[in-house]
């Protein structure tokens, strides 16, 4: 603001009274344009790589759009109607994949929000070997989904895998179908995902914890607050923005689950663990029915938008 006025002032060569009004006009114009100029580089990127593809995707979803066929007729909302009418070939697959994604999200998000928080609280304490443990918990996150997928597929194999063998060794049932039957498949997928990604959320929590002023804890201690009191009245409020961030990104990440079920359960049994993103990839990149895949994407994005809005509302409500 001050900069803008100075720029205007430096340029002003007219007599003071008239200049003043003119300068104010220039200032206001500058004021209006400046944020956009600062935004411009990102705005261009957003328009080209964000908004335009979204609009193009919506446009595609209104067509029978196949990458290689010459005719891409406009069919209005038919792709969407297919997803809602039970006599279409896509209906059952689509809703079963939505169901699978919902189950995974509902099961995994609470764990992925709470477990890393506990982990971060522990790793924030001062004890020997702290750095080693921080690295150890974060380590799985650097592995690609292909690596963890193959690894766990063999560990969890019902008949050959190490997990069942270890369970058997301690006298527990050794024939649990970890990757081929529900609900076990869900336990496996959620468990593997928590093991794989909890380090990431923990690191974010750790950063948040370190932002909470130590004086607050000292003051609380002086006032005689127990560890639980300190957690409730100092740590949690201090972490609120971090919590909202972690919750939102975790919901979105969990809703986008694909690689784990693709590699570990292969959708089994039947297609019960086949997720929405997998379904979209299949439709668009394997069957080349890009129109239908776009309609699925748009619908899925809307569903996630609703979930995110609800999520923000709930947090705001708690703040009040």
């Amino acid at each position, binding site marked *: 603001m001050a900069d803008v006025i100075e720029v205007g002032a430096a340029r002003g060569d007219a007599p003071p009274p008239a200049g003043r009004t003119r300068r104010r006009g220039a200032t206001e114009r500058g004021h209006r344009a400046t944020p956009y100029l600062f935004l411009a580089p990102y705005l261009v990127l957003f328009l080209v790589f964000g908004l335009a593809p979204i609009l193009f995707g919506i446009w595609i979803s209104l067509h*029978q759009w*196949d*990458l*290689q*066929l*010459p005719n891409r007729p406009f069919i209005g909302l038919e792709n969407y109607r297919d997803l809602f009418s039970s*006599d*279409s*070939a896509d209906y*059952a697959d689509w809703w079963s994949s939505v169901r699978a994604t919902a189950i995974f999200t509902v099961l995994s998000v609470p764990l992925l929000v709470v477990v890393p928080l506990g982990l971060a609280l522990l790793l924030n304490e001062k004890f020997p070997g702290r750095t080693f443990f921080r690295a150890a918990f974060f380590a799985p996150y650097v592995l690609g989904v292909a690596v963890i997928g*193959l690894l766990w*597929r*063999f560990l*969890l*194999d*019902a*008949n*050959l*895998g190490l997990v069942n063998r270890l369970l058997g060794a301690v006298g527990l049932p050794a*024939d649990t*179908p970890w*990757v*081929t*039957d529900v609900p076990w498949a869900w336990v496996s997928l959620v468990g593997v995902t928590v093991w794989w990604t909890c380090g990431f959320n923990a690191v974010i929590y750790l950063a948040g914890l370190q932002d909470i002023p130590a004086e607050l804890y000292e003051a609380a201690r002086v006032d005689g607050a127990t560890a639980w009191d300190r957690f409730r009245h100092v740590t949690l409020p201090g972490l609120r923005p971090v919590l909202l961030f972690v919750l939102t990104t975790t919901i979105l990440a969990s809703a986008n689950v694909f690689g784990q079920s693709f590699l570990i359960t*292969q*959708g*089994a*049994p*039947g*297609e019960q663990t086949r997720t929405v993103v997998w379904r979209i990839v*299949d439709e668009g*990149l*394997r*069957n*080349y029915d890009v129109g239908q895949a776009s309609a699925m994407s748009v619908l899925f994005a809307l569903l996630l938008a609703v979930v995110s809005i609800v999520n923000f509302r709930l947090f705001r409500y708690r703040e009040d």
Partner: protein
Amino acid sequence: MIQNEMSRRRLLGLGVGLGAAATLTLAGCGGGSSTKGSTAAGNGGKDYTGPKVDLKLWNGFTGGDGDIFKKLVEQFNSEHQNIAVSVITYEWQDYYSKLPGAVTSGNGPDIAVMHMDQLATFAARGVITELDDVAKALELSEGDFAPTVWKGGIYHDKRYGIPLDMHPMGFYYNKAVMQKAGLDPNKPPATKDEYTAALTELKKSGVQGFWVSPFQFTGGMTFYSLLHQWGGTLFDGEVAKATFNSDPAVEACTWLVDMIKQGFSPANVGQDADYLALKSGKNAFNFNGIWQINDLKKSPQVQWGVAPLPQIGSQKATWANSHNFTIVKQRSADNNKVSGAKVFINWLSQHSLDWAKGGQIPARKEVREGAEFKALPEISALAPELEYAAFPPASPGLGEVMTTFYNSFNEAALGKKSPKQALDDGVNKANKQLEDNRKKYGS
């Protein structure tokens, strides 16, 4: 394991069937005409005398076969001064999703290796060009190949693929496990009675001898084979209706599911666990692709053998597929490139014995019947299967339907539904998909 994984992925394209490819800017115009008897397009691959051409060839040979393939191409390049072929390799799964985009943007290959069941889809989309003149110039006819392989390259009465090889399923057996159960390791069971008798013996010695995988690799493909052994088919003659819930199909499926119920196979077999169990001596028998031969050869401690699939049903049959050479249509047709490509296809077809060493059965009968091929014992052991191999039908957009087929077997094998129920549900869905395909491809 990695080898097995690669091989499996390598073949994943087949059944999962990744739809097809590329732009149709050429569909109605030049592409076809360049190959129809025009002198500029060469003489169907006998020779090429024009200016030097650079050809791009795409394939998905990522396993041990990839090295052999590259060596063959190097040999071709050194023998042809005016044709330079460069090889680009992707995993099959990536391959079929990359190809359409590449061709649309004009960066596609000139020659593409393609599975037989993809040919119709790519042909219907106008991505690949007709090769009748190559077949004619090469004096190739049905008699030179197994009839099913030869016919598989035809779509709407025109030839689109020159078959390079064929890969059926084989019957792998672990000799050490058989011996332990008192079975003759040199006489693998060949009939239904022998098979169940052997399994009973194995069970007595505490071995579940035949692990039924619920997944496409390999239980689904085993079911595919047995369904044909019982005399069933996956689809009707026009590929308009799915028929894999017919009585023979239900019987074949029930027989496999009963393997689990009777305790010859464990329940809930994971992906690849059947094959790993064979290798580690936990089961005795596995129906698996010919591509596992090279993998097993790398494990000298495993005593194994391979034979044609036993006849469990009323006739012999096995799942099989085939790699084919195709020529990709370009945005601007270059007749020199097309004739160069034909020379290459011709040359490689004649060298398919060398290719057989990569672990596939050569498509050409003369090569298959030659002494040199017979000197490759494991691979030639499976050659007789080609007379009765059940190749997937030539119909565009079939990949998705095949996934439905394999998924319905998955549900039956995992005990989620009865065989009849699972197959009925699958057929219902498959019929809707086939109808969608008809609308989309117009036939």
